[in-house]
C-alpha cells in the first residue's frame, strides 16, 4: 500500500514537472506589445565612482536597456551639465547609437548597450573648498514606432435590434502597446450619413512613459482591408494633413479621429490597426562628487 502511495506521488510529481516544461512554449507566444515598456537609463555602479579625487581618471558608463517592443532608431545619448572647469571629458559628450532592438521572440529581454565616457577630474576645486558637487544629466533621444491593433465589432445596421452578430463595445480602454506612447482609449461611434453609414473612431494617444514625446506621426491605418484615409489629430501641426501632432511639456496626449464609410449591412468583427512613429527624449540625473 505504501509503495503504491509513493509511486502515485512520484507520478504526480513527474506530471507537475511535465506541466512546468510547457512554460517555455508559453513564453513563445508571449505578447510583447503590451504595457508601456520604454528605454531604461541607468548609470552602472561606481561608474562614475561615488568619490572622485582630484587628478584621477574615471569612467561614466550608461546602460541603455530597451524594454519597449519596438526597435529604437537614430538614438543619441548626451551628457549635459558637466562643468568642464573641473572635469575634462576625453570622450565626446554626445554618443550616437543607430538602433537598439526591442523585445521580441529573438530577444525576449530587449537589447542592452553600455555607453562609456572617459573623463578626468582636474586639479581644480573652488579655493579652499573640500569638495565639489556637479549634478548633471544623461539625456537620450530616439525615434521609434508603435502599432495599435484590436478586433472590434462594427454594426452598420443602426436600427436592427435583433442582429444576432457581435456585440458592439462603444468604449474600450488599453494598457499600452509595448511602447511609452500608446493608444489608451478607443471610442467607436457609428452614425448614418448621406452616403450610408459612417464609423468614427476616437482614439486617445498618450505618453505614459517617464520621458517626453515630441512629434507623433500616424503612418497609416486600416479597418479590416479598408484603408483609413480620413484621420486627423485634434491638435495636428499645420501642413501635415492632420497626421502629425507635436506633444509638448504640458500636453503629452492628443485625440486621433478616424472616419470611414461602412460597406456592409450586418454586424461583423474586424481588425482596426494603426501604425505610429514618434520621437522621444528621456533624461536621467546623476552627480559627480570631486574631493581634494
Amino acid at each position: 500500500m505504501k509503495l503504491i502511495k509513493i509511486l502515485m506521488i512520484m507520478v504526480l510529481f513527474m506530471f507537475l514537472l511535465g506541466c512546468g516544461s510547457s512554460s517555455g512554449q508559453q513564453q513563445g507566444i508571449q505578447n510583447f506589445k503590451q504595457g508601456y515598456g520604454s528605454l531604461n537609463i541607468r548609470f552602472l555602479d561606481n561608474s562614475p565612482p561615488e568619490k572622485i579625487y582630484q587628478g584621477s581618471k574615471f569612467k561614466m558608463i550608461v546602460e541603455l536597456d530597451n524594454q519597449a517592443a519596438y526597435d529604437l532608431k537614430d538614438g543619441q545619448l548626451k551628457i549635459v551639465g558637466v562643468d568642464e572647469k573641473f572635469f575634462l571629458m576625453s570622450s565626446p559628450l554626445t554618443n550616437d547609437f543607430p538602433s537598439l532592438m526591442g523585445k521580441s521572440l529573438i530577444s525576449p529581454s530587449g537589447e542592452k548597450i553600455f555607453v562609456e565616457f572617459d573623463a578626468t577630474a582636474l586639479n581644480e576645486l573652488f579655493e579652499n573648498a573640500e569638495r565639489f558637487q556637479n549634478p548633471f544629466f544623461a539625456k537620450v533621444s530616439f525615434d521609434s514606432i508603435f502599432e495599435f491593433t484590436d478586433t472590434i465589432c462594427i454594426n452598420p445596421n443602426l436600427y436592427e435590434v435583433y442582429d444576432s452578430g457581435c456585440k458592439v463595445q462603444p468604449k474600450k480602454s488599453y494598457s499600452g502597446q509595448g511602447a511609452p506612447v500608446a493608444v489608451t482609449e478607443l471610442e467607436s461611434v457609428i452614425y448614418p450619413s448621406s452616403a450610408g453609414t459612417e464609423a468614427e473612431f476616437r482614439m486617445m494617444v498618450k505618453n505614459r512613459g517617464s520621458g517626453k514625446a515630441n512629434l507623433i506621426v500616424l503612418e497609416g491605418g486600416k479597418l479590416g482591408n479598408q484603408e483609413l484615409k480620413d484621420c486627423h489629430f485634434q491638435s495636428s501641426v499645420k501642413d501635415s494633413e492632420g497626421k502629425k501632432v507635436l506633444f509638448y511639456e504640458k500636453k503629452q496626449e492628443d485625440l486621433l479621429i478616424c472616419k470611414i464609410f461602412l460597406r456592409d449591412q450586418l454586424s461583423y468583427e474586424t481588425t482596426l490597426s494603426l501604425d505610429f512613429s514618434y520621437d522621444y527624449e528621456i533624461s536621467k540625473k546623476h552627480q559627480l562628487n570631486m574631493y581634494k
Partner: protein
Amino acid sequence: MGITDAVSGAVTGGQTGPATAGAYVAGKEIAGAAKHISWLLLVLGVFHYILRITSGASAITLVFSLTLCFLGVYALSAKLEKDRKGRMAILIPITVFFVWYFIFGANPNPQFLIVFLSILFGISMIFGLFSKGSSFEPEMYGFLPVLFFFLDVGLIPFLIENLNLPITSLMQNLVLFMPWWAFFGLLTLPSEASDSKSLNFLVTIFKVLGILYLVFVIVAPSLPNVGYDDSLLPSVGELEEAQANFRTQLPDLENPAWSNLKCMMAGRFTDLPVCIQERQENSQLEAACKQKGYSKGTLAFTDCTKEQKEEEAKLAYSAGGFYTPTVKDPMKAEIKINKEQLIPEYDPTWGYSAEISIVNPSKQTFKAVVLCDFTDKKNKKVISGEFDSSFEFEISEENYGETFICTPGEELDGSYTLNITLRLSGLTTESYLVRTFMGTEKKIEEMTNQQVQETKAEIIKEIKSANIATQSFSAKDFARINYYFGHTKDNVVIEDKKPLPVLVLTLENLGSGQITKLENYEIIFPPGNFDFSDPSCKADNIQNLDVKKKRFTFKQCRLENFPYSDLQLGDWRRETMTAVLKYDYQIFKKVQIIPNQEKISLIK
C-alpha cells in the same frame, strides 16, 4: 487629542463620583506642573534667545539649548494626559536620538542603523506592552523637543547655506526672529495658563500664530534632495556656524512685529506695508551708522543715515556673494596684544609684545609687514616703534604665528595709544559664478511659439534642479569680487535673446580691516566668444579705486554676442567663471597705554 488640549481635557472632563474627583485633582496637579514648567521654559527661552543674538553661538548657548531641550521634554511629559509610565515613554526617542547623534556621531551606516533601530523598536515595544499601547503617543511627541533643538541651533540657516536656497526677505525675518524654546514653552502652556481670561486669550492667539509660523517655515522653502557624503545630519558645530554666518550676512533689521506695532500705533493703517518697509529700511541704515560709531540723535548720525541711504540706493545695482559652502577654514589674520605683560610697574623700554597669527588655508604666498607706533593722546604726536626682529616677512605656510616686541623710539611720558598694524600685500582671492547657456534654435520646425516657450520653461526647470547658485561665491578671504552675469540679477540661465546679459562687478571687503590697495582683477571665462561692450570688464588695473567703502560696484558692461550660437533648443551647458582679485589688506589693533600708571584698556 493635540498636545495643547491634553491638559484641558483632563481638567474639564465632565466626570462625577469619588474616583473621578481623584482624577480631577490629579489632572489639575499635572496641569499646574505643566503650567509652571512651561512658563519657566518660555522665560528661559526668551533669555536664551537674547543670549544667542547678543553673544552668538558658543558652548554656553549650546549647553543652555540642551538644558532647555530636557526642560521641554519635562514640560511636554507633564502636559500629557497619561499615567507616569506612559509619560516616561516620551524620554525614549529623545534619549535614543541624542545617544545616536552625540555618542555615535550620527553614524549613517545601514548595518549599524538596523541594529540601533531594532533596539529602539525593542525598547518601544517593551514600554508599549507594559502601558498597553498608551506609550506610543508620547513616544511620537518625544521627537518634538529634538526638532526644536535642531531648529534652535540653526537647522534652517544650515539648509539655506548648504542648499544655496534663494533667501527672501520674509525668510530672513523668519529665521532671525524666532526664539524657538520660548515658542515651545508657549505651545506647551495649557489653555488656561493663568487666572486672567484676557491673558489666556492672548496665549491662545500667540499659539495659533506660532503654529502658522512654524508651518510656514517648514513648508515654504521646498527643499530639493541633496546627496550627503558623510552623514545625513550635520554636526551641531556646523549648524551653529551656519547660523552665525547667516546672521552676519543679514542686515541688522528691526523686528518686523515691532515695526508692525509701531506703524499701527502711528495710525498708518492705510499704508501699513509701506510703513513697515520704511521702518525696516531705516533700522538697517541706523544700525550701519551705529556700527560706524555715531550716536543716535546727533547731527552726524542724521548725515550718516542720509549718506547710507544714498549708498544703499547704489548698492541695489550691486552684486551679492556668499561663501563657498564646503570651505571650512577661513583666511584669518589676528593681532593679540599681550596684556599680561602690561603690569603697572611695566617699563616701556622692555617693549610691548604683539602676537601675530595668520591662517592661510590656500597656502598663498604673500608679504607681510608689522608696524607699530605710539600716539600721544594729548598732542597727537606719533612716536615710531621698533621691533626686535625683522618686521617684514613672506608667508606661504598654512599657519603662521610669531610674537613681535615693539619698543618705543623715544621715552614715553603720559597717555598713549599703541597702534599695531599688520599689512599683507599680494593677496589673491578667487570668486566664482556658475551660469548655464541655453540654446534657442528650434530642432523641430513645426513648433509653435507656445511650445518653444514651454520647452524653455522645462529646460529651466531641469537647470534649477541642478542647484546652481544665483550669486557668486568665494572662500572666506579678506575681500572679493562679487559679480553677476545674466539677463537679470538672479537668473542663472543665459539665452540668445535681446537684451543680452550684463556683467556687474562689485568689490566687497569681507574682513574687519581695510583694503589698502587694489592691484588688478581678471575674469576668466570658459572657452567661447565672450566680448563685452567695455573690454576692461574682463580685466583691468584698478589702483585708482576708492577702497574705503565696504562694498561698491565698479564695473558694468553688456555682452556683445551670445557665445554658444550652435546650441539648439533643449540643449544647455554649464560653465563656471572665475574672478581673480589681487589686493593688499591691513588689520590693526589699538591699545590705550599709560606707562607706569597701572592702567591699560583695550580700545579695539
